């Protein structure tokens, strides 16, 4: 009889993962063989001319993700502090449900929202404002299309905000009450108790929450493909249309008939998978360390 064994489960899933890596590797092999390291470091993406370098997309993913995190981290942190420190339990659970629903909205809906609402907003309000503030050349230069790097980042930030808020809320709530009360009893305000005691105590977990949100932003595909502008070139400004690793695969794979085109896209997939696995594993370790640490402390205090 087959007994439930954690080791067996780990082996099965490990084998599956390995199978995926091997099959993707096989798919990417022709392009790797033909282009060599140029496949990773090349900046020209021209399937007709059979010149394929993926660096543009790696940079595109880094740029959109970084911009999204700049928006998400402060807002998410603020929301989580507000939920944990200043909202009554009934309202907190209602708001938490709303946040979790936000996380469950299909990606394509965010993409549609980005095109219908986000693009006109960026084109008519945000871009003129940034032109006025930063000048119409340089990072705020370029055409007022609406779609592009900035809109892509904003849509990404909307999509990963629930993750950031929910996980930050949980790690903050896991800080033992007696630490917060200790601060209050010394004459700290609730805000001080949260930001100077609870937040530092949960900082590893907050970092984990941000990394987890980052992992989602890196892997997000449908919405970003709809609003990024699908232009396989470096974005020279915030408003320029660009491409990410995910968006180029999604938009080009079905039409990839030129030699090595499909294979190069598979290579980008391998790259994307590596980055995602590393970021997600790191995030999970951070969050788990924080939650477990708080449980141990509570148990010690109770004993």
């Amino acid at each position: 009889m087959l007994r439930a064994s954690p080791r067996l489960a780990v082996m099965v899933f490990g084998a599956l993962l390995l199978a995926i890596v091997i099959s993707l590797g096989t798919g990417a092999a022709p392009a790797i063989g033909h282009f060599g390291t140029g496949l990773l470091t090349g900046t020209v993406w021209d399937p007709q001319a059979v010149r394929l370098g993926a660096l543009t997309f790696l940079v595109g993913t880094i740029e959109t993700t970084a911009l999204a995190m700049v928006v998400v981290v402060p807002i998410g942190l603020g929301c989580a502090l507000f939920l944990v420190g200043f909202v009554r339990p009934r309202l907190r659970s209602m708001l938490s449900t709303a946040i979790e629903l936000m996380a469950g909205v299909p990606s394509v809906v965010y993409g549609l929202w980005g095109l219908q609402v986000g693009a006109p907003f960026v084109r008519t309000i945000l871009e003129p404002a940034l032109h006025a503030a930063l000048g119409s050349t340089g990072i705020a230069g370029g055409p007022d299309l609406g779609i592009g790097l900035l809109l892509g980042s904003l849509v990404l930030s909307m999509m990963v905000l629930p993750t950031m808020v929910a996980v930050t809320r949980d790690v903050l709530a896991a800080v033992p009450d007696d630490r917060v009360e200790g601060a209050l009893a010394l004459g700290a305000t609730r805000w001080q108790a949260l930001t100077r005691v609870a937040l530092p105590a949960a900082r590893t977990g907050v970092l984990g929450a941000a990394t987890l949100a980052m992992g989602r932003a890196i892997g997000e595909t449908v919405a970003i493909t709809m609003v990024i502008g699908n232009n396989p070139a470096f974005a020279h400004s915030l408003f320029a249309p660009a491409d990410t690793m995910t968006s180029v695969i999604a938009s080009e794979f079905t039409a990839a008939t030129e030699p090595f085109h499909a294979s190069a896209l598979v290579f980008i997939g391998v790259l994307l998978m590596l980055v995602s696995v590393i970021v997600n594993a790191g995030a999970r370790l951070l969050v788990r360390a924080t939650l477990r640490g708080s449980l141990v402390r509570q148990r010690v205090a109770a004993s």
Partner: protein
Amino acid sequence: MEIEVRQVSAWFDDQLVLEDVSFTVPSLSVTALIGPSGSGKSTLLRVINRMHEETRGSRLEGQVLLDGEEIYAPRVDPATLRRSAGMVFQAPNPFPNMTILENASSGLAFNGVRKRSVLEHAAERVLRLVGLWEEIPDRLRRPAVGLSGGQQQRLCIARAIAVEPDVLLMDEPCSALDPISTLAIEALLKELSATYTIIVVTHDLQQAARVSDSTVFLSNNRAGGPGRVIEVSPTVKLFTEPKDARTEAYLTGRLG
């Protein structure tokens, strides 16, 4: 600072946990708060520095006066009040992200003191007072969580007195400590009673007898019922000739 509790009743949601509690604590004395589990001792302590209201669903009636000033008056800011009525908790709760020095002066930092020299000077004063300055001179800039339980609790006392309160409220400060650490804290308590008005909740009757000038005995008539004041007397008198039969029953182990 004289503490007067007047007809205080306290609730958690719909449950009445303290009913019509009144007593007065004279300035610069140690008062022990004793009674069976669930008689509302901790709640009563938290009423005196307005920590009770930090618990969700809590409610309160009655008055508490510190030197004649009503602490529940609308113009009183709870954070300001808590600086004059410091609290030491049952389990040591130093701030895990701060060093020992930072913990000791954390109350001042919360109250807006920024200057490093002022903070460190204050930390030195209170750490000397609780005996940690001499005991661990080389570890003062390390995280507080590395200390033993007894040292952590003395650090928490140091932290509480750094903001120069008039009242110290201690909720079973020795219940998580070994006998040696307990004696150290009791000796410290005696010393502090020259400067502070102290109320200490304890389950240890011998400790109450050792450290306190007067004793308040709280009890509930039935399990889960609200706590009431049964007897307030000078400690020696309460322990040798209790006025109330329930006090005697508790002291001799027949109640609670």
